[in-house]
C-alpha cells in the first residue's frame, strides 16, 4: 500500500534518483486539512450515501427487487448494501492516502471476475457507484442539492473555500471512475 509520499519515493527509486518534485508534496501538506475534511465528509455520511445509492439504483430498475432479481430477497439486498459500503470505504482510504494503490490492491483486484462468477449485474453496480460519486462530490464541496436531498439535506458546515476544494473533488471523482472502469 502506498500513499502520496511513498508513491513519489517508489517512482524516484525506479530511476535511482532523489525525489525531485517536492512542491507537489508540499501542496499535499499545505492542503492536508482540506483533505481530512473531505475524508470526514464521506465517512460521516457513509451509511446515508450507501443506502441512497442502492435505493436509487433499485428505483431505476425495479426488476432487481422482484423474484429472480439480484436484490431479492433481503439477504441479497443486504449483500448489495455491504458491497457498496466496502467500495465507498476503499475510496475513502484512497482519498486519505492520496494514492489509488489501496483501492486497486484491496478492492478492485479481481472484483469484476468475482461479480461475473456470482452473477452480479455490473451495469447496476456501476450505476450505484455513479450515484455515490455524485454524493461524494456534493459532500466534499459541502454543497448538497436542496432539490434532491429534501428533508435529508445535510451540510457539514466546514469552512468553505472559494474553489470548493476543486482538486479534491476531481481526485475523489477519479477514484470512483477507477471503480467504474474496473467493473466495466
Amino acid at each position: 500500500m502506498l500513499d502520496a509520499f511513498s508513491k513519489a519515493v517508489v517512482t524516484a527509486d525506479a530511476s535511482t534518483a532523489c525525489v525531485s518534485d517536492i512542491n507537489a508534496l508540499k501542496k499535499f501538506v499545505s492542503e492536508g486539512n482540506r483533505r481530512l475534511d473531505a475524508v470526514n465528509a464521506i465517512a460521516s455520511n457513509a451509511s446515508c450515501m450507501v443506502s441512497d445509492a442502492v435505493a436509487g439504483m433499485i428505483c431505476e430498475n425495479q426488476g432487481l427487487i422482484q423474484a429472480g432479481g439480484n436484490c431479492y430477497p433481503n439477504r441479497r439486498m443486504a449483500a448489495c448494501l455491504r458491497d457498496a459500503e466496502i467500495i465507498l470505504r476503499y475510496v475513502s482510504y484512497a482519498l486519505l492516502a492520496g494514492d489509488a494503490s489501496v483501492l486497486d490492491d484491496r478492492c478492485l483486484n479481481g472484483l469484476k471476475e468475482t461479480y461475473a462468477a456470482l452473477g452480479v449485474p455490473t451495469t447496476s453496480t456501476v450505476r450505484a457507484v455513479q450515484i455515490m460519486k455524485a454524493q461524494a462530490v456534493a459532500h466534499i464541496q459541502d454543497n448538497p442539492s436542496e432539490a434532491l436531498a429534501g428533508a435529508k439535506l445535510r451540510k457539514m458546515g466546514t469552512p468553505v473555500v472559494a474553489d470548493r476544494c476543486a482538486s479534491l473533488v476531481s481526485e475523489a471523482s477519479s477514484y470512483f471512475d477507477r471503480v467504474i472502469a474496473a467493473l466495466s
Partner: protein
Amino acid sequence: MKSVVTTVIASADAAGRFPSTSDLESVQGSIQRAAARLEAAEKLAGNLDAVAKEAYDACIKKYPYLNNAGEANSTDTFKTKCQRDIKHYLRLIQYCLVVGGTGPLDEWGIAGQREVYRALGLPTAPYVEALSFARNRGCAPRDMSAQALVEYNALLDYAINSLS
C-alpha cells in the same frame, strides 16, 4: 511502504471501518511535521553529490589503508563504487524524509546489508565514519532550518546505528 498514513489505513481496514476521527487526527499529526521533513529532503536533494563527496573524502582520510592495493578503495572502479554507496545511503535518507518514516532505509538499505558486506568483504567502519561526518557537518540555519536538521540527523543516526 510503511508510513503513518498507510499504518492508519491498514488498521482501519483490518477493523472494516471508515477512517475515524482519531485516524484523521494521526494523519494530521504527521502532516504537521511534514514541512520540516520536506525542507530537509529538498535541501539534501539539491546538494546530494557534494554531501556524498565530502563524506567519502572524510572516511578515506580517516582510513587511508583503504587505498592500499587489494583494499576496498584501491582502484578507480572501487573508488566510484564507494562514492556510489555513500550516495545510495543519502538517497535512501532523502526518501525517508519524504515518507516520514524509516521504511525506505529499512526495506532497501538495512535488510540484507550485513550479509552483503560480509560476502563482499567490506568493512562497515568507513561507512560509519562517512555518515558520522555528514551527521556532524550539517549546520542550522546555514544548511537548513533547525527542525529540518533534527529530522535529517535523526535518520543519519538511524543509518549509523544500523551499521555499527
